[in-house]
């Protein structure tokens, strides 16, 4: 059944392909509910965890798919399973802690207990007390279990999907994206820390911001203000066939990539404008390809970030129409030497909620959200770089923003 709001949004999408986006999409409860059903719980892979967060049998983590609470757990066989975090009895959260270790998952409400594969193993007082009460004879434990997600790991990332028909993760990522995921996850990962950034805007405004390479040198003035020039850099945007995944990258030309790109890629034109302590710009070409920045998205809500040597997973979680959380998981590798480990920590000054080149992104979505009340049937303009959603050898384009809407409209039926 299509609600009034759905019908309104359907009618509202102008007949201009992907170059217009109705503002109604950022503030409509019916759209939000449809997103949960068709995008987050639909045929899409959602990031759940890093494999290294759950090293031992019984290790679990609680997270979300969209706004749906989920448990991720490693079982005794070493497999990672995921379930909706909702007891099959009365619907309470089964796991409350963010991380933990358990031999069974037991709901605190009535002590229904599940094994690490989500099967119901124990029901308190199933046979009643002193021959009275208890479950009727037709009650069968095997009829009740935690609702499972399909789970696949790729390059140390654990993904889950509520829809059994979701294609294998490798097919989902496709031939352009998969190797670029592996590129930033080539070795055994070590978590360096977590932060959560709360945004006062709809989740899609942040996804668009990540995919929008047009704004980068305009909104983020750190490099220009300090006259930190990026010499001989090339770059571009890769959009996969679905439109939903993208890569934005910049690269130092091979002749100047000498393994230590501090001098080659970033230097102050004029010492008077430079940083007093430029050590945070020191980097290493750790993937041996001269690519200094790679921002990669996997539809709908995963961002993999390489900004020089600062590596992070950003998991985007909707928390209502106008509230979004970015869960930042910063990582390095088990075999990082001390110098590289130090670079990662120092370069973290550039990203995150206080990042020199990213803090504006925490607020700009809210600037749109706050301007929406009068938008009515109006639409935003997404015309930079044409009308399509194909890969382009420039970052002065909105092609990957259009790609997102292409994939989104397909799943949403809008």
């Amino acid at each position, binding site marked *: 059944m299509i609600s009034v709001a759905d019908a309104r949004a359907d009618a509202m999408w102008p007949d201009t392909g992907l170059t217009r986006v109705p503002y109604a999409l950022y503030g409509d409860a019916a759209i939000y509910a449809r997103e949960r059903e068709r995008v987050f719980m639909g045929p899409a892979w959602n990031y759940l965890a890093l494999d290294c967060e759950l090293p031992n049998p019984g290790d679990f983590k609680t997270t979300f798919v969209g706004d749906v609470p989920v448990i991720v757990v490693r079982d005794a066989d070493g497999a990672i399973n995921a379930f909706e975090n909702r007891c099959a009895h009365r619907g309470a959260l089964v796991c409350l802690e*963010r991380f933990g270790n358990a031999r069974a998952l037991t709901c605190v409400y009535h002590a229904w207990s599940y094994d690490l594969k989500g099967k119901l193993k124990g029901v308190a007082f199933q046979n009643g007390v002193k021959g009275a009460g208890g479950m009727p004879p037709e009650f069968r434990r095997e009829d009740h279990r935690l609702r499972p997600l399909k789970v696949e790991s790729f390059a140390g990332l654990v993904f889950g999907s509520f829809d059994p028909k979701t294609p294998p993760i490798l097919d989902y990522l496709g031939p352009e994206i998969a190797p670029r995921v592996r590129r930033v996850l080539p070795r055994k990962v070590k*978590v*360096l*820390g*977590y*932060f*959560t*950034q*709360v*945004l*006062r805007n709809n989740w899609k405004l942040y996804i668009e911001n990540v995919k929008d390479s047009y704004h980068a040198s305009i*909104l983020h*003035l*750190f490099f*220009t*203000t*300090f006259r930190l020039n990026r010499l001989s850099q090339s770059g571009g945007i890769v959009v996969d066939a679905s439109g939903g995944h993208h890569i934005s990258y910049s690269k130092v030309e091979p002749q100047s990539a000498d393994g230590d790109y501090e001098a080659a890629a970033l230097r102050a034109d004029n010492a008077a404008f430079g*940083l*007093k*302590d430029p*050590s*945070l710009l020191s980097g290493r070409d750790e993937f041996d390809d001269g690519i200094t920045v790679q921002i990669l998205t996997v539809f709908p809500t995963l961002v993999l970030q390489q900004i020089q040597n600062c590596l992070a997973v950003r998991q985007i979680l909707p928390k209502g129409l106008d509230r979004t*959380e970015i869960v930042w998981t*910063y990582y390095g590798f088990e075999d990082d030497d001390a110098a590289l*480990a130090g670079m*990662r*920590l*120092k370069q*973290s*000054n550039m990203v*995150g*909620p*206080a990042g*020199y080149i990213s*803090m*504006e992104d*925490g*607020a700009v979505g*809210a600037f749109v959200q706050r301007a929406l009340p009068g938008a009515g049937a109006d639409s935003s303009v997404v015309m930079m770089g044409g009308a399509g959603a194909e890969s382009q050898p420039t970052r002065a384009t909105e092609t990957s923003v259009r790609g997102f809407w292409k994939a989104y409209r397909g799943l949403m039926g809008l």
Partner: protein
Amino acid sequence: MPVPVDDAAAGHAVANLLADYAACIDSDALEGWPDFFTDDCVYRITSAFNYARNLPIGIIHADSRRMLEDRVAALRKANIYEKQGYRHIISVPRIVLRKGAVVDAEAGFLVVRIMHDGVLDLFATGRYVDRIDFEAEKPRFAEKIVVLDSEKIDTLLAIPL
């Protein structure tokens, strides 16, 4: 400044230092903020979750006073954010260790953020884990680890804590 001779003297000196520190930030006199630190200071903002697990990443991670000066310069000249200010409320400090001219102290803090339109938010609570050097003419932070109780940051963190 003389090196504190006992915990009471140290507590008094650290409380004064923290009061000056809060006044500097809350009055938007950020150009004076780096002077509260030694040349080779460590200043880091982290969360209790990360701190308890020895996870090293910081929202801000500086290992020199010059990096703090750069931070202020960036806030003044480069970064774009809505006008806002803080009000720090800092607890009586607890002296953890005195060793020569170095005092380790901890104090709880609460920071209210005041937006330009008058909206007030409880922006951060946590504790300062400080190492203070009394060697020079005025005490300075050799290390200041800002341990946030919550790892959630609303919108952005521009002004230091």
